[in-house]
Structure formats: structure tokens, C-alpha cells
């Protein structure tokens, strides 16, 4: 028990000695906390976006087939469906119709998608929350409600008015903010798309292991198509978000090095009072290893305080304040940006990563200075 008692006493002494130099230590902890806050925010944010993307893509079709024309996506002829359906292992093939519509009145881009449930109710639409909140010129800033009418300008110049039949649930805001569900007939009138064409095809496959074989067969039969697997989309999202997080980390490394220099400076620049304190401790019988232990506890106290405060603030920032600092980046050019709260998620792995990126460099730069102060000669200090 003697060993634990010794550690406790040294820790006790360290904390009171830290308290005696409040100003200097608080300044260090504040900067340290800020650095951890920034890095943790980036980590939490990218991780939650990844999680959100994978949740959304869970319901995505296993395979999407697009047609390419001169390297760009084009409408796909619906007769491709018959040949693709004959490939062994394909359970179902369905055409999809979707696109973007620019609304000059609100200056926003809507995503229009055909929904089979509306096919026998031409003239009606279901809209997302962002669409309903758009500012209506002339009527005032009222939100759109059920049975309101939205005018659309078709691609041949005439006007098509569609009636709002309902609103999409709020829970799926991230995907549905700018979404409008329309019937197939209205969609074709709006964009003048011939009846034998679709935007792309979606496939269901009986056995997930056959996906790549089926994709290869499709490109063999129709060399102008591009099959995309759901796993590929997921993997790409993962890589892209990780990459973004990594890039921001690199950008923030400037801040980080400034902090490391500050920490180094604070640790080397011992005041005469601190030197005298160490001198007295050694004179009354403390060994060099005890002083090193004290310095270890000092570093731990500062690191732990800053680490947890930084993580806590980052948590508040990302999950409760909907990442105010990153919002402009998130918003981008979109007018109908979704307002959504990310699902809180922190793992031990994220914390371990943060620890490696912040506490370890801090510890490394303070080892030599604390050793230097621990090996001060007591008589030379006290003689000053």
C-alpha cells in the first residue's frame, strides 16, 4: 500500500502546486482544449456523416445500371430491361425516373422522383420539408400545406400546376428536404421524356455473391452501360469522408504545431520560483525520480483536463449545436439545405486516435524539459 500512498501524496502536492500558478496553467489548458476540440469535432463530424450515409444507403438498390453517352450519363432505353432480366440470378429489374428541377421563384433546385403510388393520381405531388418552407413570392412567407398548388414550367414552355397531397416525414430530412414525389405521367410531361426511356435501372439480385458476375454480364450485353454496386458507393463514401477528415487534419496541423511549440516553451521556461521550489524539494530529500513522477502527474493532470473538456465541447458542437463551425461547408451552394441533427456516436477508437494525435506529441515534447528541471542542482538554485 506504501506505493499507492506515495503516488497519492505526490499527486496531491502536484495539484496544489499547479493551483499556485493558475494563470500560466489555465492559458495552457485553454489552448490545449481548443486544439483537441477542433480535432475531435472533425473526427466526430466525419464519422457521423459516414454513419448517416451508410444508414441511407442500406435501403438503396443492390445494383444500379446507367447508360453512358460520350462519357456522360444519359437516358436508358427501357427495352434493356428484358435482356437484363434474362440473366440468371437477377430477381427483378425496374426503371427509375428522377431528375432535378430549378425553381426560378425560390432560386432552389428540387429533386424530382417518380413514385409508383402516385401513378394513378396524376396531378398530385408529395413534398419534402425544405420544399414546403421555401419563401413564396406574392403569398408571403407561409409554408406550403396540403392542397396548395405549385406551378412548374415544363421543358416545352407551358405551365403545369401540381397539387400538394402530403408532406414527407421529418425524420428523413437529410435525404428528403428538397425532394418532390410525382407521378410518372407528370414527370414525362414536365421533362418531355419519351415513354420508352428511363433515367436508370435498379436491380435486385437473389445472391449477393453473384453481384459482380451479373455486373460483368450486363456490360458484356450492353457495352454502353455502367453498373454500380451499392457496396461500391458505400466504400467510396467511406474513403471520401475519411479523406476529407484527413485533409482537415493536415490543415489543422499548423495550429497543432503552434500548440506544440507553446507547450515546449511553457515546459522549458521555468520561472525562478519554480526552480527554487524544485531545489527546496530536493534539499529536503526528494529524489530525481520523485520530481520526475511529479512532472508526470503534472502533465497527466493538464492532458486529462484538456482532453475531456475538448471532447465534451466537440460533442456539444457537433451533436447539439449542429456543427456551427462546419455549417457553411455543409450548406455549400444548395438553397434548400437540410437542417438535421447527427446521431451522437463516440467510440473508444475515436478517443484512442485523438489521444495519439494530441496527448502523445504533447508528452513527447515535455519529457526533456521536465527531466531538465528534475535534475537541477539544489544548491545552485537556492544560491540565486
Amino acid at each position, binding site marked *: 500500500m506504501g506505493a499507492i500512498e506515495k503516488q497519492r501524496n505526490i499527486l496531491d502536492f502536484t495539484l496544489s502546486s499547479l493551483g499556485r500558478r493558475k494563470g500560466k496553467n489555465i492559458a495552457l489548458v485553454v489552448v490545449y482544449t481548443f486544439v483537441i476540440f477542433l480535432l475531435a469535432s*472533425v*473526427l466526430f463530424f*466525419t464519422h457521423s456523416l459516414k454513419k448517416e450515409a451508410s444508414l441511407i444507403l442500406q435501403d438503396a438498390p443492390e445494383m444500379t445500371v446507367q447508360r453512358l453517352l460520350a462519357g456522360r450519363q444519359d437516358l436508358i432505353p427501357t427495352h434493356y430491361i428484358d435482356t437484363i432480366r434474362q440473366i440468371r440470378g437477377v430477381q427483378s429489374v425496374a426503371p427509375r425516373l428522377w431528375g432535378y428541377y430549378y425553381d426560378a421563384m425560390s432560386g432552389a433546385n428540387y429533386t424530382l422522383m417518380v413514385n409508383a403510388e402516385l401513378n394513378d393520381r396524376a396531378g398530385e405531388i408529395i413534398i419534402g420539408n425544405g420544399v414546403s418552407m421555401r419563401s413564396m413570392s406574392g403569398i408571403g412567407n407561409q409554408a406550403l400545406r396540403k392542397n396548395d398548388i405549385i406551378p412548374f414550367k415544363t421543358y416545352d414552355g407551358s405551365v403545369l400546376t401540381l397539387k400538394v397531397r402530403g408532406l414527407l416525414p421529418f425524420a428523413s430530412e437529410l435525404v428528403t428536404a428538397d425532394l418532390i414525389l410525382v407521378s410518372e405521367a407528370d414527370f414525362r410531361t414536365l421533362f418531355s421524356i419519351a415513354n420508352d426511356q428511363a433515367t436508370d435501372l435498379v436491380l435486385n439480385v437473389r445472391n449477393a455473391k453473384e453481384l459482380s458476375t451479373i455486373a460483368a454480364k450486363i456490360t458484356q450485353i450492353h457495352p454502353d452501360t455502367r453498373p454500380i454496386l451499392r*457496396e461500391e458507393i*458505400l*466504400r467510396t463514401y*467511406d*474513403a471520401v469522408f*475519411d*479523406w476529407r*477528415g*484527413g*485533409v482537415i*487534419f493536415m490543415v489543422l496541423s499548423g495550429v497543432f504545431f503552434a500548440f506544440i511549440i507553446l507547450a515546449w516553451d511553457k515546459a522549458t521556461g521555468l520561472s525562478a520560483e519554480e526552480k527554487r521550489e524544485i531545489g527546496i524539494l530536493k534539499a529536503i530529500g526528494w529524489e*530525481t*525520480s520523485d520530481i*520526475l513522477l511529479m512532472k*508526470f502527474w503534472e502533465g497527466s493532470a493538464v492532458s486529462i483536463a484538456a482532453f475531456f473538456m475538448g471532447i465534451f465541447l466537440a460533442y456539444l458542437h457537433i451533436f447539439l449545436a449542429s456543427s456551427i463551425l462546419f455549417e457553411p461547408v455543409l450548406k455549400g451552394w444548395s438553397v434548400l439545405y437540410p437542417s438535421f441533427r447527427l446521431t451522437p456516436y463516440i467510440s473508444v*477508437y475515436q478517443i*484512442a*486516435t*485523438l*489521444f*495519439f*494525435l494530441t496527448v*502523445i*506529441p504533447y*508528452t*513527447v515534447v515535455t*519529457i*526533456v524539459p521536465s*527531466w531538465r528541471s*528534475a*535534475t537541477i542542482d539544489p544548491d545552485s538554485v537556492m544560491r540565486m
Partner: protein
Amino acid sequence: MIFHPGILALLLGSALTTSMLCYSAYEGVRIIRNWDISSGSERQLELERRTYLVSTVMSYVLGFQLLSLFLFIYTADTLSPLFIGAMCAAGSLNVNGFGYSALVLKIVGCLLAGLWLVVNFTDNKAYDYPLIRKKYWLLLFITPFLIAETSVQAGYLLGLKPNIITSCCGTLFSADAKTVMSDLLALPLSLSESAFFLSTPITIVSGLYVYFKTKGAYLFSIASFIHFFISIAALISFISIYFYELPTHHCPFCILHPEYGYVGYPMYLAILVSAVSGLGTGIINPFRNIASLCNVIPRIQKRFALISILSNSVFALIVVYGILFSNLSMAAY
């Protein structure tokens, strides 16, 4: 390279620990060349101070090394969705040739750093630094391992390119593939089981002998060393299947996942701790005749033997618990 925060953390951490170690090795060379305990010169005083710095650095190096071993496995695990066919760390470590070598070097690094700390601890208990040259030779021996580990790890992480097809843990650890792992699996279940249940009591009993009689440290040390390999082999060949409740799943990494209650962490930690403390009792044994250490070493050996016995027992208890309370029964095989 994948720009993943975990990868950046690992690269940064390894670079820092290795540079610290290189600095210590440089100090080590100076100490080996110029150490003279009988001298009261300025240089000797300076060197005595430097030993404190090296000790501090090495304790941090071991701590970081241990953390980075688990961070490495966990990162490989999280990266697995980026590679076709990789389902856990087993698959993503196989993406390029450096993965498994980096893992092995990391484990060796942990063991060596632990042993160094044991020698250092013993040396610090005596007033006249009797082991100073030996421990700095050991330090010079460890340094190339950690440099190799850092480079191989960098080679692995920088060479990762998403989408390269790798075999998943199901095929990699199935008995057909010609790897060391498959040789372990090819061991009959009864053989690996009896090896494990034989070597556990042998190690513990020889540990108790060291604890009570302070004799037989070499035997205990060798037993611990063999037990280290038997434990890992047993974990892959027969212990893991009880936790997965699947007689064909032998993955050594999935056991670290939350769905198995992170049970792998205490198990691997127990294996490492018992190996370091068991080997430690043997490595300091030759010095028990040095005048300033003859009273100290038996006490230290007792303490390490106790630590080793305890961690071996913890491991054995987890294993027995896992086998008894598993829904899987291998009685039919």
C-alpha cells in the same frame, strides 16, 4: 494511401516513439563508452542524470507501444470495408505483404520494451548501477526492432489502396490455405487443447515454485515463453470457436469486437503481461550474485512471478468460462 485519421495517428505515434528511442540509443552509446562509477567527474555526473531521462523515455515508449498495438489492430479492422472480401482485420492485414509482419514486429517490440523495463527496474533498486552497461546494450538491441516496425508499418499503411481484392477471414483461416495460421488449425483439436491445459498448470506451478522457494527462475521463464506461443495457438485453434459459437470461425481479431463483449482485450493483455513478467524473472536471474543485487533480485522475482501467475490465471479463467458457458459443444467432433 488512405487519408484516415487512425492511419495518421499511427504514423505520427510510431515516428515519435522511434525518434525518442533513437535518441535514447544515442545516449546509450555514450553511457556504454564513458561510464565509470568510481569517477566523480563532470561527465560521469552528467551521464548519471541522462539515465533518468532514458528510463522515463522508455516507460513512455512501452506505454505508447502497447496502445499502438491495439490501435493498429483496430484501425485494420475499421478499414476492412474498404477492401473487397475483407471482413475484419484478418483480411485488411493481408492486403499487402507488410500487414502481418508489422503486427508481429509490434508484438516483439512490446515484449522487448517490457523486458527492458524489468532490467531497468532491477538496476534502479541497487545503489551502484550494476547492470548499466548490459541494459544499454539491450537498448541498442531493441532499437533496430522498433525502427523496422515503424518502417514496415509505414510500408503497410502507405501501400493501402482501397478495393484490392483480399481473402476474407473466412477463407484465410480456413484449413485449406497454406499459411502458418492454417498449420495451427491443422493441429487436431485434442492436441492443442491438451497442450494448453498442460502448459497452463506447468507454468503456474513453476511460477509458484519461484514465488515460494525463489528458485527455478530459468525453468519458469522457459515455461512462460513456450506458454506464450501455446496460448496464441490455442486462442486461434480452439478457444475462439467457443466465443464465436461457430466451429469453423478461427479469427483472432473478431474476438475484439463489441459483439463478443471485447473479451479479446483482457485475453491478449493477460498473454502479454504474463509473457513479459515470466521472461523477466529469468532475464534478471544471472545477476543474483552481484553484491548489490543479491537481496533485491529474489524479491523482484517473487513479485514478477506473482504477476505472471495472476495474469495466467485470469486468461485461463476467461477461457474456462468461455468454454463452459458457450452454446457450442465440440463433443461430437
